[in-house]
């Protein structure tokens, strides 16, 4: 009996230890990842660091055929000098000697954070390992260009007049004599405003939105688009499976993945959509549930370390979601809704005009604008905080000078980043829920039937 008790006790302890071990393992992984990432972030600043170019082998390297890796490593690093390989341009790299970063640029972590927040044309995982994405670029003066972002060779090359600034494609301002046809060895400055070829400096242009502010448009399958496609496929397959299990075994208890989603769907339908919209809820619940799960999936994809998807932290993505919501409630709005928005009954004439302006602005502009900004600001804010905490490694390590400081920073930042990641998990759910709830409220306001007709 005593023996049995002892065995149960030991088993219990072991169980607890495995719990702690799993936690410690997670902690260690985060610690290593955090330190490595932060070290990687200053790889371009740290002169002592080994710059391993072996990762390049997997890429399409037509221009780098003669790149001499051994020579490159032996030579060490002077700023952005990437060794004496025979590039397509045929020129040496001596001109890059002048691009050693200034003290201020070296300590400018804010720009690094913003470069990670912004959308990019490649998925940068670690060091020189990136997943290239297709660039679909259209310039008014020269037409469509379609190519993979690996052509930029991590920003060291130009391609067809475009350059890559931390994975973000920019165009060299046309008409300045920049070589358009061949790939040139380039250096983009710290803030992504200029590109230097040899000793010549060319200004860069951002892609324009619909307004056509600059000379070109970017229709690329960027990182945010990849995240959205991934989320769509994931949701499509998950929900097809869930729907199939309802068809194949109707009336039985939910099993497997169905049991994960049924409570969520039932909770949202019964506690949010049905009470707010009322009897017509069945028409709108597919759209609202899709919104919820799509935003939730994007938020959670954004928390996977390494990939850095920031789709819901991208204004264009949240704008699209908000505009779709706007269209849904504008096109489903009944007479009652439009009358109360544009010609409020029971008011004197001047007030009617004033109310129409206020209500119109509120319904057609402010509601989607707040939907858009709330999601964007919450997700971007969280990502900025996480990246800033990762930057502690850098700051503690005196910007790549002190290894001991870096390790201490790694320890501190691991704790904080772990905490922030857990918090972001909550925020991811909460923002998806709030977006859906507000969309439900806006739709309900547009479709609700008048109850108090007599009071007007």
């Amino acid at each position: 009996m005593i023996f049995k008790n002892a065995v149960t006790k030991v088993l219990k302890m072991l169980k607890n230890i495995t719990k702690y071990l799993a936690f410690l393992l997670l902690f260690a992984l985060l610690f290593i990842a955090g330190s490595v990432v932060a070290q990687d972030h200053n790889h371009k600043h740290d002169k002592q660091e080994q710059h391993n170019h072996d990762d390049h082998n997997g890429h399409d390297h037509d221009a780098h055929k003669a790149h001499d890796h051994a020579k490159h490593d032996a030579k060490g690093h002077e700023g952005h000098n990437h060794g004496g390989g025979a590039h397509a341009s045929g020129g040496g790299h001596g001109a890059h000697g002048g691009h050693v970063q200034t003290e201020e640029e070296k300590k400018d972590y804010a720009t690094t954070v913003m470069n990670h927040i912004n959308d990019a044309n490649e998925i940068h995982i670690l060091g020189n390992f990136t997943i290239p994405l297709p660039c679909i670029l259209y310039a008014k003066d020269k037409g469509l260009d379609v190519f993979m972002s690996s052509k930029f060779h991590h920003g060291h090359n130009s391609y067809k007049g475009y350059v890559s600034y931390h994975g973000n494609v920019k165009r060299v301002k046309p008409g300045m004599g920049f070589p358009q046809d061949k790939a040139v060895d380039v250096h983009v400055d710290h803030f992504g405003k200029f590109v230097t070829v040899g000793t010549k400096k060319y200004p860069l242009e951002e892609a324009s939105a619909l307004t056509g502010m600059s000379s070109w448009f970017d229709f690329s399958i960027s990182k945010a688009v990849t995240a959205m496609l991934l989320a769509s496929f994931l949701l499509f397959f998950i929900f097809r499976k869930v729907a199939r299990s309802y068809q194949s075994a109707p009336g039985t208890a939910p099993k497997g993945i169905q049991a994960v989603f049924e409570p969520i769907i039932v909770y949202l339908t019964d506690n949010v959509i049905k009470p707010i919209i009322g009897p017509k809820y069945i028409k709108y619940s597919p759209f609202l549930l899709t919104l919820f799960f799509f935003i939730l999936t994007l938020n959670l994809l954004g928390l996977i370390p390494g990939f850095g998807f920031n789709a819901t932290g991208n204004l264009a993505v949240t704008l699209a979601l908000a505009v779709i919501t706007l269209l849904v409630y504008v096109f489903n709005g009944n007479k009652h809704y439009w009358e109360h928005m544009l010609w409020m009954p029971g008011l004197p004439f001047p007030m009617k005009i004033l109310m129409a302006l206020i209500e119109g602005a509120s319904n057609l502009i402010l509601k989607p604008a707040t939907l858009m900004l709330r999601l964007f600001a919450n997700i971007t804010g969280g990502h900025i905080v996480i990246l800033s905490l990762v930057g502690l490694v850098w700051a503690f390590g005196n910007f790549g000078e002190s290894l001991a400081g870096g390790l201490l920073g790694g320890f501190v930042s691991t704790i904080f980043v772990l905490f922030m990641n857990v918090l972001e998990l909550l925020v991811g759910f909460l923002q998806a829920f709030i977006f859906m709830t507000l969309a439900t409220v806006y739709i309900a306001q547009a479709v609700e039937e008048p109850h108090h007709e007599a009071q007007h």
Partner: protein
Amino acid sequence: MGAGLGAIGAGLAALAAGIGVGLIGSKAVESMARQPEMAGTLFTNSLVLAALVEGAAIFAIVVGLLAAG
């Protein structure tokens, strides 16, 4: 100068929104304690109101960023 003022403005807006969300939260929890059967509706309503209050703060942050930018 502009950046500093923008940051101060965003901070003030965050302060005000914080007070607002705090009031909503305290009243919502109080009401839920008084009438637990209404908890679901109260929770949803308080979330919506908190989101609306937060909207003002977000606008202020955007204006602050524009002033800083």
